């Protein structure tokens, strides 16, 4: 077990910078997920921690030791690959024990470790099978078993669930979380799926264009995104961004969305945005769950307006509604009994206590 530290880590391929100076501290026992769109440098970062890619600049430390020039086998890490990478000619038990056999562990020790891992992953009856005879989910378990038996300092997962179907993915996600709760090994997990990131991580690292956009707990990222990228990447359906301006009306700060729609800001928000120039082009960020049907009684910070819906999507538990505001499509979540229907009018309420205000040019959340 160990902590992992990245200091100004850069990866250059000829002229292209895939990773542009990453600083990251991963504590012992922590489960950190690197998430971002494809090509954001998350896999490259993981492979640099593994030692499968050389780093062009910066330092990587595992357990306090700089491992920049340490070969993968001496870093004491274990990795789970997207396509499992099981050795096809070996049985499950042989696959899991390969690393231990190379290190010449005593046979009894190998057996007990393989048995324990197999029991933990519920693959005891599969240990004599070849990978070809296993299903996708079983192969994934074996790949995890291979990592567990080594009892390494760090687990590295490279999109381990993307080859599985949706149902199995949810199941294996829980499985991975359980395993981590048992073995408590420091884990770095790469995925492009924000749901996976949110559900698994102690802390999520959102990456974009080779840089870290934001590091935080799942809740921090969801409720306090630092940039437009994070705000739009985390959460499904994504956050709405409606062009707006700040205005002083009757001595109070208001946010104007259209000629007709203007809302007074709640006092806490008004104080926070007081210094923002009134001329700046801004975006009002609102999550769909903060745009709901209007309630009969009024609450502080909740403002209502009328609109005509474009499309509705009944999900059962809730209905997603889509309408247009100044050319921008906006999504909201209403109660299935709110009377929303395609092309119909609806009185909606926005919860400005949970609003975000973004600078349209820089994408920074104010």
């Amino acid at each position, binding site marked *: 077990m160990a902590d992992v530290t990245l200091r100004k880590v850069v990866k250059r391929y000829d002229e292209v910078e895939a990773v542009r100076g990453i600083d990251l501290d991963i504590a012992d026992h922590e489960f950190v997920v690197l998430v971002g769109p494809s090509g954001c440098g998350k896999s490259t970062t993981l492979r640099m921690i*593994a*030692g*499968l890619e050389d780093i062009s600049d910066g330092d990587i430390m595992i357990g306090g030791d700089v491992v920049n020039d340490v*070969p*993968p*086998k001496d870093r004491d*890490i*274990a*990795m789970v*690959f*997207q*396509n499992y*990478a*099981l*050795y*096809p*000619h070996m049985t499950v038990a042989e696959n899991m024990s*390969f*690393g231990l056999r*190379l*290190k010449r562990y005593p046979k009894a020790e190998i057996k007990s470790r393989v048995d324990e891992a197999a029991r933990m992953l519920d693959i005891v009856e599969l240990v004599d099978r070849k990978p070809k005879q296993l299903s996708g989910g079983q192969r994934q378990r074996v790949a995890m078993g*291979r990592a567990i038996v*080594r009892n390494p300092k760090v687990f590295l997962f490279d999109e381990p669930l993307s080859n599985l179907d949706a149902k199995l993915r949810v199941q294996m996600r829980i499985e991975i979380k359980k395993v981590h709760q048992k073995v408590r090994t420091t884990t770095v997990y790469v995925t492009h799926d924000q749901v996976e990131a949110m559900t698994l991580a102690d802390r999520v690292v959102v990456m974009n264009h080779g840089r870290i956009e934001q590091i935080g707990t799942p809740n921090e990222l969801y409720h306090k995104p630092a940039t437009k990228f994070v705000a739009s990447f985390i959460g499904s359906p994504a956050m709405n961004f409606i062009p707006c301006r700040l205005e002083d009306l009757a001595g109070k700060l208001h946010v104007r969305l259209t000629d007709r729609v203007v809302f007074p800001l709640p006092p806490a928000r008004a104080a926070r945005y007081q210094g923002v120039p009134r001329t700046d082009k801004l975006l009002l960020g609102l999550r769909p769950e903060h745009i709901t049907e209007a309630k009969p009684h009024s609450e502080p910070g909740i403002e209502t307006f009328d609109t005509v819906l474009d499309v509705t999507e009944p999900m059962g538990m809730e209905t997603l509604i889509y309408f247009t505001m100044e050319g921008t499509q906006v999504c909201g979540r209403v109660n299935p009994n709110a009377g929303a229907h395609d092309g119909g009018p609806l009185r909606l309420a926005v919860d400005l206590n949970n609003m975000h205000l973004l600078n349209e040019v820089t994408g920074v959340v104010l």
Partner: protein
Amino acid sequence: MTTVTIDKAGPTRKAKYGSMSRDRTWALRWSYFFLVIFAIFSLTPPIYMLITSLKSSAEISAATNPWWVFHPTLENYVGLLTSNQFLRFFWNSAIVSIFVVTITMLISVPAAFALARMRFWGSTVLATGVFLTYLIPETLLFIPLFKMFAVIGDWTGVQLINRWYVLLILYPTLTVPFCTWIMIGYFASIPKELDEAAIIDGASWFQTLTRIFIPVAFPGIIAATIFAFTVSWAQFLYPLVFTTSTDQLVMPVGIITTLIKGDVFNWGQIMTGALLGAAPPLIIYAFLMDYYIAGLTAGATKG
């Protein structure tokens, strides 16, 4: 047009072939037609050899039907199999082939692994270069090679010409490039994550090769082995040029040089020798055919 073909097809055919489409039936008919022609083409010489090998010299030279044996005899087989000379040729061929196959695999498997997996400066150029080497015909090479060995013999006193083991240096120039090329293709088809997993598991490059790549690429290795064996067993030009004493000869050359005396052709024994010589590759092919095909196609599509 369509009605005509439907009439031709008739109901019986439908019952016979089930849901198979008419196009496919015709494709099958044509392929069988050509297969039969090719089978006749390639089987006629060995059948003629077999017939001739069962005849006495008198019957061969007699003006009888050459496609029929009137007085079958095993005298040619007995003659060859009891001749120390022929057994010597056979032995030389076997030793040379076994050594060449071993040398070839010891060189080309690690070479292919290095070229396919260990990215180093110039590895792609080198891989192409290996293949280009194979394209140079031995007819172009044997004179300069002969000269080289002669010069080496003059300078070092190590006499290589007219020794059977000179073939152990010569044959790999043919087998190593091709086998390396086959193995590069085969190794390239193994997912990259497999060696990465092995490296993280703590395997060295050598252990990755021996414990992961060789077992996984075993069909490819079998294919390469068969190729190397066939080439060295059937090679004619190099042994003809580089070996002359009868005790140094391999079988193809031995048969020609000892069974043709001036303008007298001992046809019966020549045919027998050729048939016996063709037996070992045939046996090996029969046993390893499935592996061989799997190996060739894997190399062909993924290389």
